[in-house]
């Protein structure tokens, strides 16, 4: 079935800096969801993107769905230690299929 690829696999960020993680597909996605999993925790739903070119913001997090609906990105500004964890994108096609995630560590 369809798979989404996430890059980078690991992101090491200095506290206060910005970074972006990407989610790519070779086929058009009906919608994309983002989840965050803290170390030792379980995935927690963050957002769903449905429309081409859609942009949604949650405080310091900005989510974007590509115009062709084949990619998505998550941009975090002014990274904090609370942002540590693994961010997964997941494509929904009657079931949710997850990418491998981007694991974020923060240097204080």
């Amino acid at each position, binding site marked *: 079935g369809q798979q989404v690829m996430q890059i980078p696999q690991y992101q090491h960020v200095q506290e206060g800096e910005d970074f972006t993680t990407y989610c790519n597909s070779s086929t058009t996605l009906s919608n994309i969801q983002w989840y965050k999993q803290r170390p030792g925790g379980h*995935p927690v739903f963050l957002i769903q993107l449905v429309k081409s070119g859609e942009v949604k913001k949650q405080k310091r997090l900005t989510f974007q769905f590509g115009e062709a609906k084949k990619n998505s990105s998550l941009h975090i500004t002014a990274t904090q230690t609370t942002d540590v964890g693994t961010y997964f994108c997941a494509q929904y096609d009657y*079931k949710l299929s997850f990418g491998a995630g981007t694991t974020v560590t923060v240097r204080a």
Partner: protein
Amino acid sequence: EAEVAQSPRYKITEKSQAVAFWCDPISGHATLYWYRQILGQGPELLVQFQDESVVDDSQLPKDRFSAERLKGVDSTLKIQPAELGDSAMYLCASSLNDYGYTFGSGTRLTVV
């Protein structure tokens, strides 16, 4: 806030033994999912229920895994016999619609 309940939280079992995990979804959520997450990877769907019916079990290793949701509420996932490669986190999730799944805290299985 409503939660998905899972038990046990941790399970250590010897290979060839049977093991079972339990999940109680959020009240009113008709759809229930069992995912397996290997360390360092994303969750992989094992089985999806709509009420008491299996909607998708294409990735469930049916020779050793079974899942049921008899009354359309709570669910049990069983492995018999367990193999070393089954060591993973088993996550249960539920949803009201396709807008976001709520995951439980999972069962960390170690097969020795």
